[in-house]
């Protein structure tokens, strides 16, 4: 149906002849789009295939050689990677940073968003404009001051510091996204709960959170991807014991050619988790984008 409206079908009945003509006319369009799609897919395929080849094979020729020599494929690099305690620790550090940073931003953001949406307090609108302004603050401006602050309270280099930083910088978007969603909840629903004698906390957990789930899903995915994929914040705040996967792989990229058997599977390991999240929750991801992901 969409195809036909978009093709500008004139009122009247198009015969199979015109349909065929249209298909032929569209041939170049299909070719162009297929080429574009290949252009977007092949680089990732390259990484995937490279990660399943040995370092000497990768040094000798491009990944497409497996098309003629499938015997090159091996899981040796992954085996070595999983036996490397540094990399395994880094993977778990990534999890230990990402999960609390995501849960934290959802809880703290939802609480604040509820207050902005449904609790009257003086200066509310101005404060919310402030939150909108904070959406675009670059993390760079906070690196030196927060490093100094963490040094003084003794959490510099620790996972908790990295998590707190990610929550803080995730909050403006969280509050913005959730407030706009919460504000759309019908007032009668909240009034009814109040009449039933529910307090604000009860209303928040029993009414607002369940209704807000789609927005919370969008937020969670964004925060998850942002934190999981972060390199800069971890480079600054994560010490040797808190190093996540991105930082560990980055160390290896200084000797790119020599370490390709660590870099390729490591990079693939680091991107497969967000990719799964992306495919599983694509709908919420798109909704979050459209709600104004301006980080």
């Amino acid at each position, binding site marked *: 149906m969409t195809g036909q409206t978009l093709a500008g079908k004139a009122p009247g009945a198009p015969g199979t002849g015109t349909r065929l003509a249209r298909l032929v006319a569209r041939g170049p369009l*299909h070719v162009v789009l297929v080429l574009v799609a290949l252009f977007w897919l092949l680089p990732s395929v390259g990484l995937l295939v490279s990660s399943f080849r040995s370092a000497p094979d990768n040094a000798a020729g491009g990944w497409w050689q497996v098309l003629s020599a499938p015997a090159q494929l091996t899981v040796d690099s992954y085996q070595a990677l999983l036996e490397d305690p540094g990399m395994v620790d880094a993977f778990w550090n990534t999890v230990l940073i990402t999960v609390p940073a995501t849960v934290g931003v959802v809880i703290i953001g939802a609480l604040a968003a509820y207050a902005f949406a449904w609790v009257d307090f003086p200066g509310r609108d101005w404060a919310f404009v402030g939150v909108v302004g904070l959406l675009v603050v670059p993390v760079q401006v906070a690196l030196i001051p927060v490093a100094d602050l963490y040094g003084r309270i003794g959490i510099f280099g620790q996972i908790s510091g990295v998590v707190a930083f990610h929550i803080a910088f995730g909050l403006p978007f969280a509050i913005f996204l959730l407030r706009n969603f919460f504000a759309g909840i019908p007032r009668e629903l909240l009034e009814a709960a109040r009449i039933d004698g529910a307090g604000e906390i009860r209303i928040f957990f029993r009414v607002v959170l369940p209704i807000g789930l789609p927005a919370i899903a969008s937020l969670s995915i964004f925060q998850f991807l942002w934190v999981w994929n972060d390199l800069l914040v971890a480079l600054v705040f994560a010490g040797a014991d808190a190093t996540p996967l991105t930082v560990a792989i980055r160390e290896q990229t200084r000797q790119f050619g020599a370490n390709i058997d660590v870099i390729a599977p490591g990079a693939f390991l680091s*991107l497969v988790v967000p990719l799964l999240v992306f495919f599983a929750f694509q709908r919420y991801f798109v909704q979050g984008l459209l709600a104004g992901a301006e980080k």
Partner: protein
Amino acid sequence: MALAFLAPALVLLGALVVYPIFFSAVRSLFDRGGDSFVGLANYGDMLSSPRTRTAIRNNVIWVVVAPTIATGLGLVYAVLAERVRWQTAFKVAVFMPMAISGLATGVIFRLVYEDDPDRGLANAVLTTVADVFSSAGGYAGARPSQPDLLGAEGEAYVSTATFAPGDTARLGLLALRPSEVPDDAELATVPAAGDDTLAGVVWLDFTRGGGGEAGAVDASEQGLPGVVVEILGATGVVATATTADDGTFAVDGLDPGAYRLRLAESNFRPPWDGVRWLSPTLVTPAVIAAWLWIWVGFAMIVIGAGLSAIPRDVLEAARVDGAGEWQVFRQVTAPLLLPVLLVVLVTLVINVLKIFDLVLVIPPGSVQDDANVIALEMWRVSFGGGRNQGLGSALSVLLFLLVLPAMAFNIKRFRSER
């Protein structure tokens, strides 16, 4: 009551986002260790040091080029994708990279940009396409086995002796690895020349294991196919021949006389081996291309949503009025889409100002200075070995000032929506 809900967010935002802005502003007025007040000296350094100037210049290139291309491509893809049935698959392919980290994207593109066309995808594709159109000979580095018979003339080789119809020329070459001899090469033979035929053989005058005689076509020696042989008369090239699989060539119908033979320059031209993507001049465009790979999908999705929000009856009305597809796009779709395009552009500009990981990962160490951007330099100066947090703070304040217009845009848009 409200305070209880807001307190955790306010504490975190205050301590880790708002307070740092002021701290950085003050810190930028102090020296590298933070001990003595230096006024605006850090800003002076920032604007005079070649490294930071390159970084600022590159950031300008990024801001001007990258968001515009991403928005433009996103628009084109969104419009085109709507016209095919498999648009969902197409869109997923293009915006999937959004889930991938800058680091992993950097690794992916380091592989794509390898110089060697046998390893880097970009150069492999380019050289393959170029091979179709150009005539690289495939015998780069070969030289005559008898230098007194064939003399160098530029990149080509010309016979010192002359040949007449009825003669047979033996033109031996050396210095080719066995892998450089084409697969379809056969054992060299010496052709018999007819009365008005000038014939000859071009072969690899080298017997593996030794024992061959220079200038003689020995039993196990291979002909070199595809060599372009030019027959030179008094006035220049009078005929051209190409050797067969056994290395032989023959030219009929020559007038009697003396001719010299030339192995054309094209035989010895080395094949084009692609573009040096990560050289100082190209590294920034190359990193921008990797960034586009991530962000065009974002532009496409947001613009696509904007497109589908345009009421169908408006488009239909224009078509009924006789407007062509291009006119409909220019006069109806584009104006209605303008606000969306602006939002996408501003979002991408903010993103590009802060670009960091791709520039850290893709350029090899030797060209890092050429690819430098403000966010990367800020990190390098303050944490990555520089240890000059005064200058680092000045750079971060610069970044903050640069996003202020975007902040104003967001606030204005937000208030007008209410």
